[in-house]
């Protein structure tokens, strides 16, 4: 299952990564080199394995639905770029309407 240039472009798109075309050869070679070592797993007999049997017994604990919000130990305004009515304001994008009205 050799990784191709198109595979890397596709995966980069899925992962929201901008990959330069001149780095593609290098990345294809690297990923193929790494994944080549993974092929050993294909030789292992796993027919009898039931994955659910290996989940820890307490991996999905049920508890009272009573937790309150996480207590912020620093005031909101000390780490958010801008706060309005208790909400954090994030930057506008240039492509958004009214982008000249940047917040903050």
């Amino acid at each position, binding site marked *: 299952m050799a990784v191709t240039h198109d595979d890397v472009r596709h995966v980069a798109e899925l992962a929201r990564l901008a990959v330069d075309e001149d780095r593609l050869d290098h*990345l294809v070679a*690297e990923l193929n080199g790494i994944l080549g070592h993974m092929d050993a*797993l294909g030789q*292992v007999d796993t027919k009898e*394995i039931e994955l659910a049997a290996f989940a820890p017994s307490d*991996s*999905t604990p049920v508890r009272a639905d009573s937790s309150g919000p996480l207590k912020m*130990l620093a005031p909101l305004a*000390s780490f958010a770029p801008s706060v309005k009515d208790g909400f954090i304001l994030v930057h506008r994008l240039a492509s958004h309407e009214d982008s000249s009205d940047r917040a903050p």
Partner: protein
Amino acid sequence: MNASDFASLSAVALAARIGAADVTATDAVDASFERARSVGAGEDSLNLMLWSDRDLALRDAAGLEAGIAKAGKGGRLAGVPIAVKDNIATLGLPTTCASKILAGYVSPYEATAIVRLREQGAIVVGKTNMDEFAMGSSTENSAYGPARNPHDVRRVTGGSSGGSAAAVASGVVPIALGSETGGSVRQPAAFCGVVGVKPTYGRISRHGLVAFASSLDQIGPLARNVDDAALAMEIMSGEDPFDSTSSSQPVGAYRDQFMSIATNPAPLSGMKIGVPEEFFPENLDPGIRTLCERSVDALKSLGAKVIDVKLPHTPLAIPVYYIIAPAEASSNLARFDGVRYGLRSEEAKSLRDLYAITRSKGFGPEVTRRILLGTYVLSAGYYDAYYRKAQMVRALITRDFGAVFGDGVDALFTPTTPTTAFPIGGITDPYEMYLSDIFTVTANLAGVPAMSMPIGRVAGLPVGGQIIAPHFGEAAMFRVAYALEASLGPEAHQ
């Protein structure tokens, strides 16, 4: 006492003296910063510390002293300076995961582990260097340059908790926190000659630990001796409502057994310790093999019955780990998109551009490689062949441990690493670097506790011996480690 006197004190001894008002927390913090200066902890030398704030630490020390004056006691870590890996959230200091994408980020809350240590009087003096997002085995993948090994500055510290291991090894702090996903506490502990613990999965809350691979991640302590590591474990362990994977299993009093071990000529009598042959391959460094054999002889002389055991799926651990961990990372790191944290591209003209440009500028080469790898093994057409298959082989690895421990074995003894610390820049092939975790990743995949401790040196470089125990078997693990440490004596550190 001067700074080097402080540097030779254990955390237990230092807390006792501060609690008794023999020395002050301010003295201890001052000594830590003086030690950092004298050993060259900064970027122009060991490069082990990324962020520190002397005034903040001194304010914390003054607050603690006021508490001691009022209450007459200061907690089990009263005034003890600690260093914290840069992927664990702390108030007042940045938490950047040594990545440009989180440059300047200061968390509005603290990790549960930090809160618990502070409640016992610990004082955070700085955030330590690490491989970016804990992805690496040498601390060379930091956006702020590699950390250097205090025993030989031309060599790596190991990773990804390399700065924390170096901070303990160089005497800047007696205890530091690291995090484990595939050996990131134990491997640098071995390379730097200190004790490092990977707890049972769920033993310590992950709340406030920046997620890398959530089914594997655990916070763990690094310390100069077993007693200090056990104390930190006792304090940090236990259920936490902010982490649904934290366990409600009662936390053991690991240190209570130490006094009787010290006075018992055969403290491991009745214990069965397994030595798995897969951890002693033909190409194991002969010096490391000799030191492990010496430790096994010591375990026998301490009364343990030592037997050969098999963990047959161990050679598959690296392929399994480097499918599962990148897969989980590709999901966890999706949150770093330029909107909510740190770096943000100013040249993007669309939302998609904002994500892609920010992430490509913010992540380093190893993180990018693992996100691509993880996305690939999760993508349509490859999920079954890679991710699902890796999970099934992970189950076989877990079953190997279950079979050995179910057969009455109390703990396993192995080398921590196949080599000593390698030269900075000495390994350039990604998969060759991954192989340096070959003896540590199985414990993460199976979720069992494991620790590394110094067992001697080869050509002047520290060597770690690893003790692995069954799920929530930390008490037995510490029993073996404490007895072995006492038996090997100071020579193991030299």
